[in-house]
């Protein structure tokens, strides 16, 4: 099986992948909900971190715990727990992000019988000295909590090793993004989507090797070729659970060359310092990485970041995917729109519930947007 196929398989059925991994390696599987999770600490405990993205199918049980105005990600994650589809999890960690995730943590703790439950009550503001100290205190507390739950020592050395491995993964995914940004013809967008998602699902040691090979392979294939001329699109907004979007945009004549998703570029942007105190270094990265709108660094950071990305990646337009009922993203959209328009960057937005708007309709919108560019 080639690497792309392996990523694809893991992404299409994470539970199957992880259960096999658990059987083969004996590793404990720890689920998490958000890219602010310090995966390195979980890895240092000898466990396997698995990000849950929320199922889109057969939602029936979650509806008796969550109202209709809850986003599909939170509803989907709860459904996976209530239906016991993820009952192989040995534990679940909930970093604090938005109001809905906050209540998901409570409802999970009160209703899910399998696995332990841990909160990581991160700061919401990330730009002050006391917030920084608190961030590091919280990470230390998480290490202690996890060490108790799993009944293992989590040494600084082990965290350091996990940082090295995570950095290697992030560097490789970045290299793949960079190559495809230069040569959009190298692979369909959906494979790029699969690669970054697989990074949050697959065995990290295996990933470190595979991703480096994928990057090397792409480099080889790119050598001597000319970059394809395409309409270059930057995607922004909430997490992307919609692989179909890539193909739809490609069929409409565009290529997604970069993104600002926590299930995309925000996941691998910024490496962790390999200095003396590993938890402080992890904390530093979380404080300095591209911010989720549920957190605060400054008033203008997200606009600056998206505009800079559009310029750097030479994107001709930005498409926002806004998850329905995602308050943090919905509050930011009007100001981002205004700022992008001022910078002369064309944009459009698509509201996404558990599924995309009707395909024909959406494709027409993409087509007319791309035509305009």
């Amino acid at each position: 099986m080639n690497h792309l196929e392996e990523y694809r398989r893991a992404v299409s059925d994470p539970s199957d992948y992880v259960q096999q991994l658990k059987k083969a390696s004996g590793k404990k599987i720890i689920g998490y909900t958000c890219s602010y999770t310090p995966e390195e600490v979980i890895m240092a405990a000898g466990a396997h971190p698995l990000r849950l993205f929320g199922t889109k199918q057969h939602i029936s049980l979650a509806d008796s715990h969550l109202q209709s105005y809850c986003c599909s990600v939170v509803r989907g994650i709860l459904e996976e727990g209530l239906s016991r589809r993820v009952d192989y999890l040995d534990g679940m960690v909930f970093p604090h992000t938005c109001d809905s995730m906050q209540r998901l943590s409570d409802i999970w703790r009160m209703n899910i019988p399998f696995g332990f439950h841990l909160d990581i009550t991160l700061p919401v503001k990330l730009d002050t000295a006391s917030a920084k100290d608190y961030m590091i205190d919280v990470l230390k507390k998480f290490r202690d909590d996890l060490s108790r739950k799993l009944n293992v020592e989590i040494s600084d050395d082990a965290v350091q090793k996990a940082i090295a491995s995570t950095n290697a993964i992030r560097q490789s995914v970045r290299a793949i993004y960079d190559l495809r940004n230069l040569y959009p013809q190298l692979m369909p967008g959906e494979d790029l989507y699969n690669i970054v998602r697989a990074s949050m699902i697959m065995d990290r040691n295996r990933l470190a090797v595979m991703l480096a090979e994928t990057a090397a392979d792409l480099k080889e294939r790119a050598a001597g070729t000319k970059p394809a001329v395409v309409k270059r699109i930057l995607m922004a907004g909430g997490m992307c659970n919609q692989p179909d979007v890539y193909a739809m945009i490609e069929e409409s004549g565009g290529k997604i060359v970069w993104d600002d998703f926590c299930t995309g570029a925000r996941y691998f942007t910024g490496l962790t310092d390999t200095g003396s105190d590993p938890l402080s270094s992890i904390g530093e990265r979380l404080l300095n990485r591209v911010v989720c709108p549920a957190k605060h660094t400054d008033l203008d950071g997200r606009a600056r970041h998206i505009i800079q990305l559009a310029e750097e990646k030479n994107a001709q337009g930005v498409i926002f995917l806004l998850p329905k009922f995602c308050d943090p993203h919905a509050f930011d959209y009007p100001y981002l729109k205004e700022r992008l328009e001022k910078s002369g960057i064309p944009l459009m937005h698509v509201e996404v519930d558990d599924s995309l708007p009707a395909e024909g309709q959406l494709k027409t919108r993409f087509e007319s947007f791309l035509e305009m560019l």
Partner: protein
Amino acid sequence: MTDHTQDTEKKTVSHTKQMREIMTAYYIDAKTARENNKKVAWITSGGPVEPLIAMDIIPVYPENYGAMIGASKMGVDLCKKAEDMGYSSDLCSYARGDISCATVKGGPIGGLPEPDMLICCNNICGTVLKWYEVQARYFKVPLFIFDTPIVHTEFTREMKTYVQRQMEEYIVFLENVSGRKMDRDRMVDVGKLSVEGQQLWQEVLDTTMNRPSPMTAFDAFFYLALIVTLRGTKQAVDFYRGLRDEMRIRASEGKGAIPRERYRLLWDNLPIWYRLKWLSQEFAKHDACLVADTYTSAWCGSMKYIDRNDFIGSAAETYTRIYLNIGVDKMAEIVLSMIDKYQADGIVMHSNRSCKPYSFGQYDIQKIVERERGIPSLIIEADMCDERSFSEAQIQTRIDAFMEMIRAKKGAS
């Protein structure tokens, strides 16, 4: 005061009038702050207002204003204006109303006075963070974020240190923006007045333990404004002392808030501001009195953590461990204790599209209440300010069915 009682007492009317006068004077003060060389701070409803009072900075509450927008039925129009600006109709209707008032200069009382600073405490929700970021960009004034980590299960040492440090940062922020030092002795006095005000507010609410109850939750929604906006002032203390005494007298005379009180109900979540009168009448028709609620009691719910002689020193815990900033199971415990304390026969839960941290978890609380106390519950799907989410016919039918259940359970007499 909501007009649901036929025998409106003279003295109660005088408290209603007095309260209106106090709020009018307060808003005139706030609107003329510039002329009087005073600074105005916009602050979230759960934020630490006491340092502002101690420094003569006028606190203004966009959420209180949101309630005014809702009660004056201006919510839909203003929300639509925000939607025209690009804000999703799924966002909090207080935020939508306030954001559109700031730009269109519309809304009740001709809009709020412009802020010199913004104080955002996220102990009530994450929405206020985004809302205040919007306003900080619009008004270009300094924003202080008072970050109170959610206490899912435990209030940790780490949280305490973090929030306590922010209390000092907050004071430094106020000193910088206002260009004056805080008088720490005055702060101690304001802290004591705040505690006294909260105690009196609790005592006002506790008069509803009487049968019949001398006031309803709908009255509490009205009288709440002062403990939110003027907490830490002598004015609030004096007012609530008077109101408490009045309610105690009414209770001792056996005067109920509704003509015939047969059933007692507990309300959960924010009020539905544009239908207070209708709802109170609907329940009164069934001889049901809403005797208590989880909302108005939130402003005196963390008193057990306050050290009255060291208000600032104990503020970290007080402001972090408020009703909304705790786990759903802890909220359920409080609901159960209120059911017992006020002897509620049923619970009415407003599932409020605008308020996710208050509403997500309600279904679990409902199940816990039914399991632990065996009393009927009603969930009303609506919104606090946006009338488009309110279906009167459907809600009326559901209220009737709910009251039928209560009657069947309790007996009609």
